[in-house]
């Protein structure tokens, strides 16, 4: 039996939320470069999207392949609202437009959720995929509302400026996104603490038992999806305000797959997992793609490695350390971790070298001379191949060794901790 605990003030939690808020406020003061701001704005919108996705996957156990439908349709309705404001036909503050997107997402959540949430598990995944394809195809079929493949563009500098905020400069958009992101984070976290959030967990873990207790699992899934669709719509609206354009890509399978990747990489088992995942994912897509053609391969490899070795995502790796830290035993793990990190970096350098050389050779439009890590070489000559191959092999061997040490130490500490508890 769980004992109800009453705590007047969860100090840790307040500190954490406070720090998050401070991070949102201060980040643009540290990363002042325009491109960093662009990226952070996108991270903000993506965080909402991924968190809303995790309401399905992590909290409700529903694997969706069509979540972009809700954010995308939310974005389409926002763009029309924004254009109406521009024409003077509608008086509505731009700042609150995400509500329009959220509402649109919610309505479509009700419509599609009625169909999709009748089933759970694999069937749910399949239906969501089908609905995603259906909506995407329809978006291209009705150019009157969706603007065809060109999408619908808009201008966010409309309406009367409020306190001098016109949303012209990118920094104002960033703070708009940051504010909404923070509010949505709080709201979604609060939702996990409500009876509905708890019931969603129960339905995820054991639908039969939940049914026996008297809950309608279908209704729980439905409510969870509708709420999740609302937040997805909010994120769609924010991306519409940020980009000033909405295209069919907003509802595409690629977007749906992206949010799945991001959420999973971050970790579905923890509330903050998708936040971490979004930051990593947006970095991969937006920043890394500017440096290397192979970004998709790196992302794929990273994702597979996570599925194989850390299915709980980055968040679970972090959370696993908490009890050790709390027991003040982290120091014992520090050295093996450092070793593993160093070995991993060596292996990673070897991998990056090999991958970049392969891309260089396969891309016939470039000559094979290249430079990596500040060293210039010809990708067709054997020497760099041996070098990077050796790095990779040595790194992997060392990583295996280090991993074993980590495992031993980890097992020992866990054993002792559990012994103490017993």
């Amino acid at each position: 039996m769980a004992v109800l605990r009453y705590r007047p003030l969860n100090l840790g939690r307040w500190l954490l939320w406070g720090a998050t808020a401070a991070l949102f406020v201060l980040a643009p003061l540290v990363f002042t470069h325009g491109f960093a701001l662009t990226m952070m704005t996108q991270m903000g919108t993506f965080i909402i999207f991924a968190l809303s996705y995790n309401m399905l996957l992590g909290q409700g156990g529903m694997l969706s392949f069509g979540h972009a439908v809700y954010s995308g349709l939310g974005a389409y309705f926002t763009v029309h609202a924004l254009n109406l404001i521009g024409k003077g036909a509608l008086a509505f503050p731009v700042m609150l437009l995400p509500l329009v997107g959220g509402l649109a997402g919610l309505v479509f959540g009700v419509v599609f959720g009625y169909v999709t949430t009748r089933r759970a598990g694999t069937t749910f995944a399949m239906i969501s995929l089908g609905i995603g394809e259906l909506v995407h195809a329809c978006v291209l079929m009705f150019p009157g509302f969706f603007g065809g493949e060109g999408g619908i563009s808009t201008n966010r500098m409309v309406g009367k400026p409020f306190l001098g905020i016109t949303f012209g400069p990118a920094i104002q958009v960033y703070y708009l996104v940051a504010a909404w992101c923070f509010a949505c984070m709080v709201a979604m976290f609060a939702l996990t603490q409500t009876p509905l959030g708890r019931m969603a967990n129960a339905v995820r873990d054991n639908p039969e038992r939940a049914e026996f207790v008297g809950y309608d699992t279908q209704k729980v899934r439905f409510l969870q999806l509708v709420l999740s669709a609302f937040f997805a719509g909010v994120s769609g609206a924010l991306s519409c305000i940020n980009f000033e354009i909405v295209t069919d890509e907003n509802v595409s399978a690629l977007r749906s797959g992206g949010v799945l990747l991001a959420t999973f990489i971050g970790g579905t088992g923890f509330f903050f997992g998708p936040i971490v995942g979004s930051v990593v994912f947006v970095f991969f897509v937006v920043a890394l793609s500017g440096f290397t053609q192979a970004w998709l391969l790196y992302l794929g490899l990273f994702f597979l490695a996570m599925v194989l070795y850390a299915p709980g995502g980055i968040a679970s790796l972090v959370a696993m350390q908490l009890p050790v830290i709390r027991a003040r035993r982290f120091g014992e793990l520090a050295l093996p971790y450092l070793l593993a990190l160093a070995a991993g970096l060596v292996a990673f350098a070897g991998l990056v070298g090999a991958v970049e050389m392969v891309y260089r050779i396969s891309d016939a439009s470039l000559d094979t001379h290249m430079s990596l890590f500040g060293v210039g070489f010809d990708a067709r000559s054997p020497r760099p191949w041996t070098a990077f191959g050796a790095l990779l092999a040595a790194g992997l061997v060392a990583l295996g060794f280090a991993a074993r040490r980590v495992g031993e130490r980890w097992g020992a500490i866990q054993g002792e901790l559990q012994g103490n508890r017993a």
Partner: protein
Amino acid sequence: MEFFVVQLLNGISYGLLLFMLSSGLTLVFSLMGVLNFAHASFYMLGAYFAFQISTRIGFYPALVAAPLLVGGIGMLVERYGLRTVHRYGHVAELLFTFGLAYLIEEAVHLVWGRAAVEYRIPPSLEGPLFAVFTSQYPIYRGFMMLVSVAMLVSIWLALTRTRIGLVIQAALSHPQTVEALGHNVPRVFMLVFGGGAALAGLAGVIGGNAFVTEPGMAAAVGPIIFVVVVVGGMGSLAGAFVASLLIGCLQTFSVGLDWTLAGLFARFGWRVTADTPLASLWSIPLAQAAPVLPYLLMVLILIFRPRGLLGTREG
């Protein structure tokens, strides 16, 4: 009449190709519970391997070797990937194949480039097979039908008449018992996954030159074969067969028909004009909406008959 016969033949041959693709998927799903997102990627690999082999040796060796190669890759994937993630549950398995699909596509980009490759129909299979009134029916389409029917028959025979087939069927429903009887169930899984991949590879060998062999081909067929599997009933081979033909014919015939909802309404005396709400929806001709119909069918099936046409279990 000519139009009808030609469309019927087209529908059947397209349906049979869909069946070749979905049979492997549904086999793997029914046995292992794994929805293989990389299934279409195996189809693509089959086409590329066949291209490579047929330019070196010839088409007929490729017809045998390429599926075997793909099947081998499938077995490796099962042994070193899926088996590891199996303990994390079906979602992890699904995600693994999802990530694998990304990787295979990148690998294909790297090895064969990003444009279409010149994978041609062999000269011996080129030309018309017979004429339907004035239209020709190509030999190659006949060949496609032949191969997939042969495949259907041999899968059925293998599952019902051979020892390994019976073990597979038993492992499907009672894995523990089969294991207790001394059969190596993980190896059966590996074989089945490899077999499923090989079937997709075979579809790639004969689909790759009938259509176009390029890196986007996996993404193009991926969603539709899931539709086939869902409509037919998850894990039902016969269901997949029926659903493939149904969807093949549905898509083919709807292309030929310029019906609109507006036309239908007009029969009941409602006139749709430009001012009618959602006018563009009512006046989309069926032909234009053809490729969307399978998804619509799938949604309808899931609402009214959630286990699919011939499925025996739900979800």
